[in-house]
């Protein structure tokens, strides 16, 4: 019978082949789905994967939006991946994203309408702090009381969502907004607007920060003692203890980093693409980033590619709606399929398929 056998070393060729294989499988099954819906499958697949780059009318603009969409995913996912490597499962990035946006946004609103280039950095610091502190709740509860961080951080997402609702109908509500549950616009004032650095690629300051973080994370994980300790804790908690690594410190550091980065992502989204706080402000970046982190195999550079791939399916998916009249639901099925395939074929990196006679 067929069996999976662990490889001694993760397979390098498989690392490269599997994502391609997954995307091909997705194209095949997604194509069948589209055909079943009466949409030309070839055209649809081309719109999703090819046209966001090369379409004569949409290409240039779509490309400029890829990084805008991928930026927050990458920033959050890199932070999460550090924790995941240590076996610390923060799945509440959505909550930290919201709390970051609220804290940073509150600072901006308190200073409103102050001008000055120091406003945005101050807001960013406040946002990072907000996300950090929100992530410290599961960290401290885990360290002090051994409470499962997956569940605590998930619960805190709902608390944050409700807190946001209370804020935008309360203290942070726009006094000139006719009672609508939303804050003042941040992009209406220069000092609280995220600068766009290179329009054709959608490089706003937040994307640049995301890329800096990617490199910093890589350096930390591969070249720094802390990175080594984090990985050791994840792979063998016992060995880490013998090596003098304090698990509590690792929990606090990894959750803190991911919280701070998610908080910053929240602020960049707020002061850039979103523009203001509303109850609809969170659109699930914190959850999608978890998937992105795994698709990128918890490697910072892999995460960049995974983030862009996710963004591609969103943007390409819209193009299929626009030009082929595909229902939005078909796109989310397609995305779900792609994730399944990517997660499924990943097994061949660390395992290989062997034919074995049943031995008893």
């Amino acid at each position, binding site marked *: 019978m067929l069996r999976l056998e662990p490889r001694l070393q993760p397979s390098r060729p498989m690392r490269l082949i599997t994502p391609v294989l997954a995307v091909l499988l997705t194209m095949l099954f997604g194509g069948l789905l589209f055909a079943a819906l009466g949409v030309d499958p070839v055209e649809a697949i081309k719109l999703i994967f090819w046209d966001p780059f090369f379409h004569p*009318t*949409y290409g240039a*603009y*779509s490309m400029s*939006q890829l990084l*805008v*969409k991928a930026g927050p995913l990458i920033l959050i996912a890199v932070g999460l991946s550090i924790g995941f490597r240590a076996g610390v499962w923060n799945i509440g990035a959505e909550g930290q994203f919201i709390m970051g946006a609220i804290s940073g946004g509150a600072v901006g609103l308190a200073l409103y309408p102050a001008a000055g280039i120091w406003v945005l950095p101050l807001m960013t610091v406040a946002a990072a702090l907000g996300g950090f502190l929100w992530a410290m709740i599961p960290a401290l509860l885990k360290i002090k009381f051994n409470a499962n961080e997956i569940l605590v951080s998930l619960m805190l997402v709902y608390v944050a969502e409700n807190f946001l*609702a209370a804020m935008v*109908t309360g203290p942070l509500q726009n006094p000139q907004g*006719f*009672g*609508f*549950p*939303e804050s003042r*616009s941040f*992009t209406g004032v220069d000092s609280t607007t995220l600068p766009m650095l290179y329009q054709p690629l959608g490089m706003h300051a937040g994307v640049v920060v995301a890329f800096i973080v990617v490199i910093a994370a890589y350096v930390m994980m591969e070249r720094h003692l802390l990175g080594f300790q984090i990985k050791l804790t994840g792979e063998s908690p016992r060995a880490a203890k013998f090596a003098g690594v304090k698990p509590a410190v690792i929990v606090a550091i990894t959750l803190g980093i991911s919280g701070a980065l998610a908080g910053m992502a929240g602020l960049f*989204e707020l002061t*850039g*693409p*979103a*523009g*203001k706080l*509303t109850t*609809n*402000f969170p*659109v699930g970046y914190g959850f999608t980033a978890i998937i992105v982190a795994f698709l990128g195999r918890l490697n910072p550079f892999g995460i960049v590619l995974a983030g862009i791939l996710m963004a591609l399916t*969103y*943007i390409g998916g*819209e*193009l299929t*709606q*626009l*030009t082929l*009249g595909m*229902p*939005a*639901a078909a796109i989310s099925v397609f995305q779900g399929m792609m994730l399944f395939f990517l997660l499924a074929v990943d097994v061949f990196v660390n395992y290989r398929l062997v034919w074995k006679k049943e031995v008893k």
Partner: protein
Amino acid sequence: MKFTTTLAAAAALALGLGGAAVAQVKAGFVYVGPVGDLGWTYQHDQGRLAVEEAFGDKVETTYVESVPEGADAARVMTQMALGGADIIFATSFGYMDQVQEVAAKFPNVKFEHATGYKRNTDNVSTYSARFYEGRYVIGTIAGRMTETNKIGYIASFPIPEVVRGINSAYLAAKRVNPDVEFKIVWVYTWFDPGKEADAANALIEQGVDVIMQHTDSPAAMTIAEEKGIYAFGQASDMKEFGPNARLTSIIDDWNPYYIQRVQAVMDGTWTSTDTWDGIGAGMVGIGEFSDKIPADVQAEAQGIVDAIAAGTLHPFTGPINKQDGSVWLADGEVADDGTLAGLNFYVEGIDSELPQ
């Protein structure tokens, strides 16, 4: 070849500034929910289909559904504009800033923003419906039909649009039935069938026998049918959900407006406007009256519909006091649109606190 088309395009652009006629109009629609929500988005999509029906080959429509408010909306509208849309209908209040942003980048594309109030550039129009006129009609019917004198109101968010509706319905009900009492439940969502159903049940437990709603799903209608009380269709007719419960409905009818605006683009006569139409212009439709409503009440309600349509009756005509007893409108005074647009208080008599 390419050179000549570029020239032609340039020429067309030059003409476009003068508001030239367009032979084939491409219209894009951005929806906040799925077209199958049977409420808000569904009705806008009916409007899109009406445009297709009216113009046939001369129009091409596209839509993108479930577009979150914020960055995603800006991207979708930009792609529509790039794709050659002549006119884009952005059908959610939350798209407001994105509409301004994208409209500034595409001066030759017309933007129509539903329920918004910003028109930063002259290629943006805003439009909304005076739903409160419809609520005055159903308020009258509710006031006549209730036996317990308790009317339930499922409200979404405490924004002027919703507050206006509550006040209007209350004034109407109170006028025909001085003993009437309103029970208001805020669910803080536009769409959550489970919660809307729970809210309906909570109201029924408080002795309510007529339910109005300002949320999008037909859940409350379904519950009303099950419990044998009355309700009103909201956004769409909802008759199929409550054949016995439904008294009438307030229908968002965007069809005439959409057809008229696309026509304007076709003729080159489109200009930036702020439209706030009601029953008279057909933007607010009143569904067929159920035969559960006695003939005299039907006649009374129809009279109100006609009077509002003719402009002889305005739901907010004084004397009306605010909830705290202070005077809002003196005898015979009619509320101006500015005050109505930002309405943030209840009228006198509503026994409940407006969440702030």
